């Protein structure tokens, strides 16, 4: 494996993941140019003006108008050329893509996620299309979604803070107890990928991984049908612990703003 291949980030499987890589590359180019100037000064001046080669120093405080203007211009150039540019690009990406959540009623895949030490739980609505009912499809460690369709996650945590991380989609969001956070992306590739927990969550943090299975539409339908059948017979309706979900719309009010009410998860249990 070549070096560049080795240090490459994981392959992109979402429609907007490349935006992150592009912004990263753009920033890198800017950083390299600016750092080249710093290094030029640092190494060339160190060589040229070492005591061996230059004994006569230029006696200046650097507070003449011209010098002050020059420093100020450097500062402001950096701000406008590098910073505001990447801020604008990042802001556009966020508003057009990452914060542009699917609208209500749009045909998307919806998944509720419950993080706990040290496991990911996933909940798909069953045949009735409603969450937190007896026919929900519950999985853990494995997330199944169809390719080519937006998928939105509503995420919360049972105990400590976790972070729901798709390296291949270049996105993560924290899973926080008492809050519902959300995330969406649109998978473009069929295959099996890694899901990670990115926030320190205890001793076995490193074991808290799950698999993302992106199916073709047919294979997803087949999986879903089978899983729903299994859920009908397999779900233990007496077991209160299975009802950790919430009605999807409840998350609407809560997602993406800091107003959460008492312990979402527990409320459904009562």
């Amino acid at each position, binding site marked *: 494996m070549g070096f560049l291949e080795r240090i490459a980030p994981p392959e992109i499987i979402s429609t907007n993941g490349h935006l992150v890589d592009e912004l990263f590359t753009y920033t890198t180019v800017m950083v390299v140019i600016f750092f080249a100037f710093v290094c030029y000064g640092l190494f060339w001046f160190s060589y040229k003006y070492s005591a061996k080669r230059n004994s006569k120093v230029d006696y200046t405080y650097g507070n003449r108008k011209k010098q002050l203007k020059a420093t100020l211009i450097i500062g402001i150039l950096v701000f406008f050329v590098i910073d505001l540019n990447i801020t604008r690009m990042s802001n556009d990406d966020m508003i057009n893509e990452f914060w542009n959540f699917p609208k209500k009623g749009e045909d998307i895949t919806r998944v509720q996620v419950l993080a706990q030490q040290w496991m990911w739980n996933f909940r798909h609505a069953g045949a009735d299309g409603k969450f937190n009912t007896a026919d929900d499809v519950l999985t853990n460690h494995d997330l199944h979604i169809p390719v080519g369709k937006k998928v939105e996650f509503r995420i919360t945590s049972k105990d400590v803070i976790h972070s729901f991380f798709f390296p291949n989609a270049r996105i993560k969001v924290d899973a926080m107890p008492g809050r519902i956070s959300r995330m969406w992306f649109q998978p473009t590739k069929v295959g099996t990928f890694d899901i990670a927990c990115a926030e320190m969550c205890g001793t076995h943090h490193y074991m808290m991984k799950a698999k993302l299975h992106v199916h073709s539409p047919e294979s997803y339908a087949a999986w879903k049908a089978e899983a729903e059948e299994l859920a009908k017979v397999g779900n233990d309706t007496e077991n209160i612990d299975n009802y950790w979900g919430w009605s999807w719309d409840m998350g609407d009010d809560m997602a993406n703003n*800091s*107003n*959460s*009410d*008492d312990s979402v998860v527990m409320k459904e249990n009562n």
Partner: protein
Amino acid sequence: MEKISTSNMKHPKEIAFTILMVSWVMLFASLFLSYALLRFKEVNWPPMGFESVSMLWPGLSTIFILISSFTLHRFSTFFNLKSEKEAKINLYTTIVLGIAFLVSQKMLWSHMNDVGLVVSSGTFSSILHGFTWVHAAHIVMGICALFFLLNFNKYFSNNDYKLRIKHISQFWHFLGIVWILMFLTMFLF
């Protein structure tokens, strides 16, 4: 410390005390910030199932600390006039009122426990308990500082001592203001 040039600069102790006060303001400001964030997160305050605390003990505490600030102010006035007897009465009253404040806080805590607002029963009682603890701990520090003033009659013309009185008074008034803010935001409204 010898003075080596004359100007109207402040005494180092005054500057140091100002900085210390900034630190204390930041400490209590962080507590109030936490309180604000926790409170505005809730739809109802106090949250469902909790009743507001009776105003008796917090009200008494407020009265005690208001009068104590006043008597402490009187003490420094009489100290500057060098009238020993009046100064003494006011200082002792301040200390007694400070202790009375602590007693009323203790009664407040027992009262809260009696009505079911124990420490571990949710954010509402966490805030009431936690913040009054922190404040009461500072009142204890304040009372200890007041004890350092007991032998004031030996120092009527000592400038350093005047600074000490000034700073302890500032600290005490500051705690009074913090309590008033706590009273207004946590018990009254």
